[in-house]
């Protein structure tokens, strides 16, 4: 309960002044994000190490700090 109050208090005092930006509708924004991620995934499919298992197994770091 205490934590809830704490959070509320901060939220109301800190966020009242926020400017309202023009945001595209959620669905359009989601579509754009998905398209960008798709392009990124295409690229990642190209650069990701071919043999994931061997790549991960060979990465060993001993000693440090």
């Amino acid at each position, binding site marked *: 309960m*205490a*934590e*809830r109050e*704490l*959070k509320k*208090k*901060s*939220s109301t*005092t*800190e*966020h009242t002044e926020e400017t309202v930006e023009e945001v595209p509708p959620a669905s359009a924004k989601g579509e754009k994000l998905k398209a*960008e*991620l798709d392009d*990124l*995934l295409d*690229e*990642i499919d190209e*650069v*990701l*190490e071919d043999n*994931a*298992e061997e*790549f*991960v197994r*060979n*990465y*060993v*770091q*001993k*000693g*440090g*700090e």
Partner: protein
Amino acid sequence: MAIPKVCGIETEYGIQVLHGDPNPIAASSVLINAYAQDVARQQVGWDFEDESPGNDARGYARQGSMAPQVETHLLNTVLTNGARFYVDHAHPEFSTPECIDALECLRYDRAGEEILIRSMEAADASVHDGRTFVVYKNNSDGKGNSYGCHENYLMDRRAPFARIVHGITPHFVTRQLYAGAGKVGAETATHEGRRTGFQLSQRSEFFEERVGLETTLKRPIVNTRDEPHADPHRYRRLHVIVGDANLAEVATFLKVGTTSLILAMIEDDVSGDRDLELADPVRAMHEVSFDRSLGRSLPMADGTTATALSIQWELLARARKYTEERGLACLGTEEVGAEVLRRWEEVLHGLETDPMSLARQLDWVAKLQLMEAYQDRHGCGWDDQRMAALDLQYHDLRPSRSLFARLDTEHLVDPVSVAEAVTVPPRGTRAWFRGQCLTRWPTAVVSANWDSLVFDLGTDPLRRVPMMDPLRGTADHVDDLLQQSAGPSELLDRLSS
């Protein structure tokens, strides 16, 4: 009044050799040598005169505690930007020069990445046996081995260490909400049952103690290394070992900015009405890392509970009140201090309402979004080896391979200023004097460390110039002196007159 929070970041990079001898010490040496000889074209060694990492801030050494060894035989260089670039155990390590605020610290941390990228290229070109050197900015190999990204903050010696421990622990437990670099699965024995899945932090699960001197085993949330690299009667250097190495610029900026601010409040003995002491900080730190809902209740020492987010909101509210009353001078410039507060609130608000909206700001969110999208496309789960591969390759510094570099994350420092920071020191600390002397008279400076420079003027004996105050030797202090001195002997004459 709190003193300026001079700060720096030391990063141990993961290193791997493809097609050749995998010895990491040899590989790190090739890497740093190649940079010093072929890129920087100068090599000034490190001076170990004042190294004492075994001193404990609590004023005693615990029985059986393992003080770090100083490895004087391994390759160690000082760069013209005032940084130290060296082989630490089995890793190449880059320590930024002393910076006056979080934004400058970010800029030099980014310059460090650039230096490692140039080092890889130079190392590949320097060997003729087909070896390829690959460097990762991460903190674990996924097999139970962790290496650090340590921060350092200048503090007033008068602040009692017990107050620092009490005041900073809640922040160190909860700041991973935005400073975590994200990781697939768990790798320590404590979390045997959590081998798959995703956690916020690379480092958190490796912490086992509240307070201590060690850095490599039984890691403590608050490290007690008392090695100020400055006048020990006036200053201490808080050596912070809990952090992840961040690639996202907003994450690095906030990690350093928020910590500086809370340390300033501790120095001024400012706290809030509620005691934020956690009942079990070590356990809480692990739980926060594994809690993707960000809503788990943590038991507090006073018997109540709090979420990590509510602790961060409380710290922010205190910081706002503190800075309204006392200003932002301890955080460098007014603009940087205001930006820390603004970003801090923005990120907490994002975490509270829609964490995935922070994919351009925070490493763990960026990484998680990428992994979930990959899982959707390829119909695989967290246990698929490609998740661990994506995790690792996120941190690969090679531009041709880095997954992080392919993401559209937000930048706070422009590439031109990062490129400048590769060779030019920060203006607002003693790093300016160190870097300028190295730039102007590379052959006369025989060695350097954080708090002194040693000159060889061709006449016996060698001359050591102490720099015991990190806030002196700035561009404002010494530029006239440097410009009026035709050579190093004239500089030393003017300094001693």
